[in-house]
């Protein structure tokens, strides 16, 4: 099991939960598990072609998966996966 940290803007799709436990060997598998349990979150993470959206980054611990093996990045038990969407507020 790995922990997925859900950012504030997406918590409305996880019933308010800020952390979701999911099992899977890779980031891709974890995200599939997440979107299976919380289907409404899917369109916020993936585009129509099923690719991760360009304003959402996924980190395993403190590393960006774009610089690891992208969605094939392996996740060990105890790792933390963070979803970091862009936010723009400032006023």
């Amino acid at each position, binding site marked *: 099991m790995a922990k997925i940290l859900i950012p504030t803007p997406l918590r409305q799709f996880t019933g308010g939960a800020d952390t979701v436990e999911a099992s899977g060997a890779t980031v891709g598998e974890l995200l599939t598990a997440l979107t299976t349990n919380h289907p409404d979150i899917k369109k916020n993470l993936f585009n129509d072609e099923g690719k991760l959206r360009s304003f959402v980054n996924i980190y395993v611990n403190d590393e960006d998966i774009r610089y690891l093996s992208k969605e094939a990045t392996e996740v060990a038990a105890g790792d933390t996966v963070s979803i970091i969407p*862009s936010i*723009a507020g400032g006023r």
Partner: protein
Amino acid sequence: MATTLTNEEIQRYSRHLILPEVGVDGQIKLKDAKVLLVGTGGLGAPLALYLAAAGVGTIGLVDFDVVDASNLQRQVIHGTKDIGRPKIDSAAESMLDINPNLKIVKHEVPLTSENAKEIVEQYDMVADGTDNFPTRYLVNDVCVLTGKPNIYGSIFRFEGQASVFATDDGPCYRCLYPEPPPPGLVPSCAEGGVLGILPGVIGLIQATEVVKMILGIGQTLQGRLMLYDALNMKFRELKLRRNPDCPSGKCSVVKDLIDYKQFCGIPEAPPAPVASTGDLEVTEVKSMIDSGEDFILVDVREAHEYQIASIPKATLIPLGQLPMRLSELSKDSNIVCHCKSGMRSAKAVDLLKQNGYTRVRNMKGGILAWSDKVDSSVPKY
């Protein structure tokens, strides 16, 4: 002529001068520095106040908004007496009250692809305190093109991000997020809400980085994204890398400035052609209620918004719950949807039409218009 400190300044900056890391040389660097603040709102307010106090000699302000009562919960540079005044005037007044030695340059214009370079070129660095994606990408891109560091901060509800972008060898905002999100996929600013104290924390992280960069001390947030979670009181940091396609100090992505359409989670155009047909004015809805017309007024805002202000007779079904609660609305009933400003209810009207409802209309302007035109006792928020 070399900059010196006056006796008044020596007294004022005494606590800096006795720090070996700052000293007289450092204080003179601050005095000679020119920093542009884009926005004098939530992030801009603490930035401006503390950079003024710290003795940053020239501070440029970009803002064209006026102070509104709803700003005062977080924009501490403005006061109750300033409601209705241009923010740039109110901000400058507060800053000069703290430190009359400052030179403040007012840019009372929206930052656009036309004027951005000319404005930014006059400064050493930029602190981004804007509130929307188009301006954030514009600020980033102009910083990349002019070689000025972009001291970045951003907030949403209880969370904040901060970093330092566009330094000579560091990543830029587009290395983090190549493109802004399309309209409609991020919650709107007004819908989102923000803890008033949050921009204070993030704005002061930005101010700290500005001062360190001017002084050339410490380690900046270059290459790191600082994340702050106020609810759990946690700071975390993530590694940021420069886009591998931009290896030699030259950005391969930013070629020219782009004015993205202004949006804030709001669709640029109604998502379907049906959305705009048959909109109702608030006064028409009022007459429908008064004449006892048979219709259902559906309030698609959130329950906590309903608690702040509501229209008598309205049934609350938050937009997010609407797909699951269609059974509560009969297909042939006469339905009017409303929200705070008319945006979410337009989405609700679309959703209902897509589900076979034919007699659905949107109340234009939402509860804000209701307060303006029908019942001023309904508070605006």
